[in-house]
């Protein structure tokens, strides 16, 4: 496994697009954090006294600002890095070199997944730092950090990881980098909102079982947090199983 991890690490770190996409993600999250901080400043705030009452404190909730950039739109840069894991392999025929070097397919599949998750986690943590620094530089006052803030940040990180794995698996299943990136984006931005709006009378339960909607529910918290998380996880695991089985069975 260590050799496969080294292989994948060298693969992902030896192309410029990885760094460009990472930088774009950090810039996007920083920018969104700044805009959200400016908009929300003075509009509401948590006094941090445990009452949960939102008051105009003149400061902004840190959690809201920091995870603002972790939506499915700005996350496209991170998911593209994830999609490139298999996308570049199929686009340039490298998969045949890779699999002739690692004929145990589950091995390279696992190595790729691990490295992608590590990158996503690292970028997420960096994006938090960027958002924090941006807010500080902008001179925006921040509410006290509460346990709910940490839970918000944790949920946002898990959402980003799950969303990236969706792109990773869709690329593997379709063997197409563009589809791997665009399908989740279209689902989140177009298909699911339209389906939810159009079918709200006939299938009111539908949105909660759609992947990105479920992920957003989990991300946003609230009463449906648990169900959203389970549904989102089921989509990620389900596509993961399909991806792995296809990868193992089909010709390179």
């Amino acid at each position: 496994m260590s050799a496969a991890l080294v292989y994948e690490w060298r693969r992902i770190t030896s192309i410029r697009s990885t760094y460009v996409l990472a930088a774009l993600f950090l810039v996007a999250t920083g920018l969104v954090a700044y805009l959200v901080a400016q908009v929300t400043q003075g509009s509401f705030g948590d006094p941090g006294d445990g009452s949960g009452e939102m008051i105009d404190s003149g400061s902004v909730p840190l959690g809201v600002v920091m995870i603002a950039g972790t939506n499915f739109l700005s996350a496209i840069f991170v998911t593209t890095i994830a999609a490139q894991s298999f996308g570049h392999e199929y686009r340039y025929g490298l998969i045949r070199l890779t699999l002739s070097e690692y004929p145990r397919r589950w091995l390279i599949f696992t190595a790729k997944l691990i490295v992608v998750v590590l990158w996503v986690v690292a970028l997420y943590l960096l994006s938090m730092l960027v958002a924090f620094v941006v807010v500080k530089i902008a001179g925006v006052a921040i509410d006290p950090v509460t346990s709910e803030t940490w839970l918000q940040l944790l949920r946002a990180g898990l959402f980003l990881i799950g969303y990236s794995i969706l792109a990773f698996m869709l690329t593997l299943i379709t063997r197409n980098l563009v589809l791997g990136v665009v399908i989740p984006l279209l689902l989140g931005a177009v298909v699911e909102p339209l389906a939810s709006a159009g079918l709200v009378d006939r299938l009111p339960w539908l949105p909660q079982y759609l992947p990105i909607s479920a992920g957003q529910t989990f991300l946003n918290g609230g009463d449906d947090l648990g169900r959203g998380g389970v549904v989102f996880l089921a989509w990620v695991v389900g596509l993961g199983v399909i991806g792995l089985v296809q990868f193992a069975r089909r010709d390179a």
Partner: protein
Amino acid sequence: MIVDVQSLSKTYGSVQAVHELSFRVSPGHITGFLGPNGSGKSTTMRLMLGLDHGTGTTLYEGKKLVDHRPVTKVVGSHLDAKFFHPKRTARAHLRMMGSEAGVSRARVDEVLELVGLQGVADKRPGGFSLGMGQRLGLATAILAEPKVLLLDEPANGLDPQSIQWLRDFLTHYAQRGNSVLVSSHLLSEMQLMADHLVVIARGRLIADESMSQFVSRSTKNDVLVRSSDAVRLATELRAQGLGVAAETPEALAVTGAGTDRIGDIAFAAGIAVRELVNRQASLEDAFLELTSESQDFAAGGDPGAMPADGDAR
């Protein structure tokens, strides 16, 4: 290391691409892998590497490839000149491909120099010519010094000097006790390089023998005899059961005997022989004869029937 290919088969829909194919690649030799377009050569190589799923097995020194560690010390393959990311430098590509065998930076540099890419080691290969892509592919294959090389059309796009270099390199590689299986459409080159041949057509084995045995099958192996009396000599030769065809009024093409026997027959008949030449068929002659019935994608027209400029009017 002996490579034992056992009953490989592969079907795409209703098309049987490879059918019960068995052969052996032996160490110390270059084995040429020949077949017309679409005969299943590339599919066979992919099956041998486990890239495609089919039936049958390929054993490398008695074990499947997945049971070897590290794999790249066992077999190095080069299947296509464009299997690289266009933005990843040649050096980074080799560093990545060397990870499984723990190949050092020094070895990467050594291989880059060996294939003549040291000057472009840090360039992106997106702009490489086909020949440079072939060199990078070959560098990838030999990086971990594998005991077996599987090369699919490695000479495509190479200039004559590079082809000669490739031939010398593979000859020395095989002489060090390694096994080399190489496919090529450059039959004249293959004749100079390979000492054993595996020939397939429509996915089936049609020859697995030494180069000399294969070439000797051709009907173009004959003896040219120019004599003072070709008509009488032809009668004498036919009487001895030899095949005779007139090439010119004075010259005969004789099959079924060597120069010594033909000379003796002519001498016994009192016919003066003015020229006696042993003509050997080329690999191309033998290959074309053997596979003439097995081409899936043969050009249909007579190239000589092409209208000259202006004839089409």
